[in-house]
């Protein structure tokens, strides 16, 4: 992007900004970092780029955390976000469809980054499924297979666990990524 050899202090600052702005939608985060980068380059082109000048420019900018906060990191939970969390939490009432509706609401919201949406919606069913299978396989091998009077096999119970818990886990995770109102 630039031919100027850059002070490591600047790279370090931009990395901190990128991290501090981690909760912003990707486009806005990239734009913010690019703008600050542009500012630093314009400032150093004017003042010279020796160490004290670099420090001065970065100090005048303020901390990366302060800038990220001004950019509105941690989006608030609005009506759409609340609806998504509630639907996911009670999605076991309507197995399958409930989860899909909740997932649709989450995807419609801009409050979560793509990564958070993926973790909330894909990872949580897998974690629950894996957990349920591990527990059930352990239990059934310990009890040599005849301790289930419910008539349900381990796989059925694992599926039930996913239906009941995956939505709750997803809602809990996604909720933790939002600012309290």
């Amino acid at each position: 992007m630039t031919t100027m050899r850059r002070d490591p202090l600047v790279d370090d600052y931009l990395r901190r900004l990128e991290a501090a702005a981690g909760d912003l939608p990707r486009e806005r985060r990239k734009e913010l970092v690019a703008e600050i980068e542009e500012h630093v380059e314009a400032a150093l082109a004017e003042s010279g780029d020796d160490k004290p000048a670099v420090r001065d420019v970065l100090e005048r900018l303020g901390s990366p955390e302060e800038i990220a906060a001004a950019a509105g990191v941690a989006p608030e939970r609005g009506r759409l976000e609340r609806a998504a969390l509630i639907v996911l939490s009670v999605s076991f009432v309507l197995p399958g469809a409930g989860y899909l509706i909740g997932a649709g609401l989450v995807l419609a919201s801009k409050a979560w980054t793509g990564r958070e949406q993926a973790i909330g919606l894909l990872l949580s069913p897998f974690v629950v499924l894996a957990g349920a299978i591990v527990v059930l396989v352990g239990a059934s091998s310990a009890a040599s297979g005849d301790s289930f009077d419910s008539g349900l096999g381990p796989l059925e119970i694992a599926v039930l666990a996913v239906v009941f818990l995956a939505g709750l886990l997803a809602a809990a995770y996604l909720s933790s990524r939002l600012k309290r109102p």
Partner: protein
Amino acid sequence: MEPALSQLRRGALEYCVLALLRDQERYGFELVRSLSAVDGLVTSEGTIYPLLTRLRKEALVTTSWQESASGPPRRYYRLTDAGGAALAAFSRDWARFRDGVDALLTSGGRHDHDAA
């Protein structure tokens, strides 16, 4: 900075941005340094950029990329008609507000009854 002043500053800052753009386009760094030159207006220069983004989203300013003689292209900010109208409205309100507060601060409201 005093909390009261910092609140006033936050409210007035965006109109100072619009005012700087009234007669000419400017790029980000130029805007930031002009605002910084006003004592007490800006404490952290970096926080102006999120403000500029908001003004653009509210369509009070628009941006365009322009080549620069030295270095990469720059994003220039220009006042929109809506931005001009918002600035004009604020300028009127601000003058009334400032005069009213000034009158109270200097006289302690002693002329209230005379005036009425």
